[in-house]
């Protein structure tokens, strides 16, 4: 129910309400109609009785007691032929309809008024009224089958009407809800277009002056505010890049000049070298922060080119072996001969460097480091695993957060941005970076990148200009 569209919800609510209303009406109407029909029937029977008296019985002369004269025969008017009729004159029954099941029924016990009676051998009730005219007591009755038939027809009509109404209401409701919500759909598709690609576009303002119009106006104002914030964030990263890197460039140029002038003492030279290394560190940090600023502003874009992962992986292994030299790590690579992903090789390198550096840092002496890559359907998974102690459970969730060192010990260097940057870059590629396991035996991270086929034109291996 929660996942239903608004349109469906509205139509289903309409449907339920209508069904309830129709059933409620039916429950109320059926007895009322029955009552009404019964009253009409009673009136009818009474009229029959009255007619019988006025047309026939007024002229009735009873035979005197002891007289040999034959009793006067009562002949029913045509309208009453189909009724049950019993006529008593005084205490003497002078007429009874010739219906077998009616023969022995004593109606006198019923008393005056209207009665519903089940005759013997009958499968349905009958209705009788008793009327008193002068000395004549007249009972006129009829089977209630007619009424039952009417009720059945009525029920039948309802059985047809309710589903029809349900269908009508459901689809009509959908149609109505759809047309009422069509400005919302238009807004949704416009809002989807508004993004980093079309930040200037706004929601279409509807002609009608209703709730949707007010919502549109409010949303457009929010988009304006967001765009201003976005623009200033974008300007910030461009400006900050320039503002931060220029002084580093001056510093660096000055240090290079000192180094090249040739009259430095060895110790001074060592200091200058250290300072140069620090400017590089500063540059990397500035670049990392700008990269994160771009990611936050949604401006971190990757130009996806098909790239051959094989040389990238072997270079990473090469670096990792040397980095792990001190800890005497055994580095292994498992990868197919051909593996292509869509992405930016520089960025993928950054991700892999971050992962392998961590795998060296948090490894144990004489430990193992395993890099493996394989294609799984539309994805390439590169996993980097190292031996060493497990990451404590309480730190796993925060592993990818910024400036989080996950309690891995203060003596391990790094600024705590590595995994965060790696994940941002992986996601900018449309992939992801996750911790697969960390159980004390292996700690394994998996990088998922969109896979691709080898480019059709197999150009000569890309020329790497070392100075670039």
């Amino acid at each position, binding site marked *: 129910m929660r996942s239903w569209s608004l349109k469906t919800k509205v139509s289903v609510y309409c449907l339920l309400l209508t069904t309830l209303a129709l059933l409620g009406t039916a429950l109320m109407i059926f007895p009322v109609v029955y009552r009404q029909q019964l009253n009409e029937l009673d009136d009818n029977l009474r009229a029959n009785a009255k007619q019988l008296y006025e047309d026939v019985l007024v002229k009735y002369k009873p035979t005197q007691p002891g007289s040999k004269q034959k009793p006067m025969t009562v002949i029913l008017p045509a309208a009453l032929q189909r009724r049950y009729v019993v006529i008593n004159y005084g205490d003497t029954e002078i007429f009874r309809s010739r219906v077998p099941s009616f023969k022995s029924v004593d109606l006198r016990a019923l008393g005056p008024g209207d009665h519903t009676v089940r005759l013997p051998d009958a499968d349905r009730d009958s209705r009788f009224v008793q009327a008193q005219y002068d000395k004549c007591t007249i009972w006129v009755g009829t089977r209630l089958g007619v009424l039952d038939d009417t009720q059945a027809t009525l029920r039948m009509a309802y059985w047809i009407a309710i589903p029809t109404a349900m269908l009508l209401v459901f689809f009509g409701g959908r149609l109505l809800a759809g047309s009422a919500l069509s400005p919302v759909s238009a807004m949704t598709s416009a809002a989807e277009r508004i993004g980093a690609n079309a930040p200037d576009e706004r929601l279409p303002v509807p002609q009608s002056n209703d709730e949707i119009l007010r919502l549109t106006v409010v949303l457009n104002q929010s988009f304006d505010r967001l765009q201003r914030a976005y623009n200033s964030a974008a300007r910030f990263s*461009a400006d900050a*890049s*320039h503002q*931060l*890197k*220029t002084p*580093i*460039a*001056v*510093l*660096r*140029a*000055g240090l*290079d*000049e000192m*180094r*090249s002038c040739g009259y430095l003492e*060895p110790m001074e*030279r060592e200091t200058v*070298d250290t300072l*140069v*290394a620090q*400017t*590089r*560190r500063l*540059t*990397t*940090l500035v*670049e990392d922060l700008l990269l994160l600023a771009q990611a936050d502003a949604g401006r971190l874009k990757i*130009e996806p080119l098909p790239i051959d992962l094989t*040389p990238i992986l*072997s*270079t990473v292994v*090469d*670096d990792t072996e*040397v*980095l792990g*030299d001190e800890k005497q790590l055994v580095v292994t690579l498992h990868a197919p001969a051909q593996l292509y992903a869509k992405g*930016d090789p520089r960025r993928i390198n*950054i991700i892999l*460097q971050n992962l392998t*550096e961590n795998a*060296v*840092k948090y490894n144990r002496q004489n430990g193992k480091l395993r890099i493996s890559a394989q294609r799984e359907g539309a994805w390439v998974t590169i996993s980097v695993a190292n031996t060493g102690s497990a990451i404590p459970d309480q730190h796993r969730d925060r592993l990818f957060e910024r400036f989080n060192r996950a309690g891995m010990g203060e003596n391990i*260097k790094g600024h705590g941005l590595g995994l965060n940057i790696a994940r941002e870059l992986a996601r900018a590629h449309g992939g992801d970076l996750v911790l697969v396991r960390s159980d004390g035996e292996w700690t394994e991270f998996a990088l998922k990148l969109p896979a691709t086929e080898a480019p059709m034109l197999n150009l*000569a*291996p890309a*020329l*790497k200009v*070392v*100075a670039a």
Partner: protein
Amino acid sequence: MRILVVEDETQLSLHISRALTRANHTVEIRHDGAEGFEQARSGQFDLILLDINLPNMDGFTVLRKLREAHIHTRVLLLTARGEVGDRVNGLKAGADDYLTKPFAMEELLARVEVLGRRTATPNNETLLEAGPLRMDVVHRKLTRNGAQVALSPREFELLQIFMQEPGRTFSREEICERIWEREHEYDTRTVEIFIMRLRKKLSVSESDPPLIETVRGVGYTMKLPA
């Protein structure tokens, strides 16, 4: 070479100019885009170092207007913005090369040399030779006296740096910088390990003098047998 430096950061232009002068180039400096353009239009320079963020007229515009005026002096763009888009824009606008700030002065000088040579020989040095070594940069193959030597990717890059400029001394810091663009855990010690591995692969016998020599307190150089 006569070089025009258009850079608004005075300190930086000063250092650049000193370094270029020491390398026997004639340098003129402008701190403003419009002035830089006027100066460049004279066409009397062999190379222009052009910053992108400039007062009055930005570097891209200067470059575009120069090319429109049919001034084809080679241009090396300098920028603090390392974004790929900038690099592509710069090269599209007609720049010959692109260098992001901060940069190593040695690298700037090397690029300047390459751009200066471009008139005579094409830059694509795909076959490098040094003593007994022959390096095929495109197919990433190395032979020593005709026999193939298998190098790991980094070892290959390292040797390429030496073979591009045999006889020059490279500091550990410069090597580190040229191989790993970003600062990482890789430091000068990493370079030492790679040099050790490379030497081992290149040496034929223990008695053989190493091709890559350590210059005490400075760095490494590749010495060519006389």
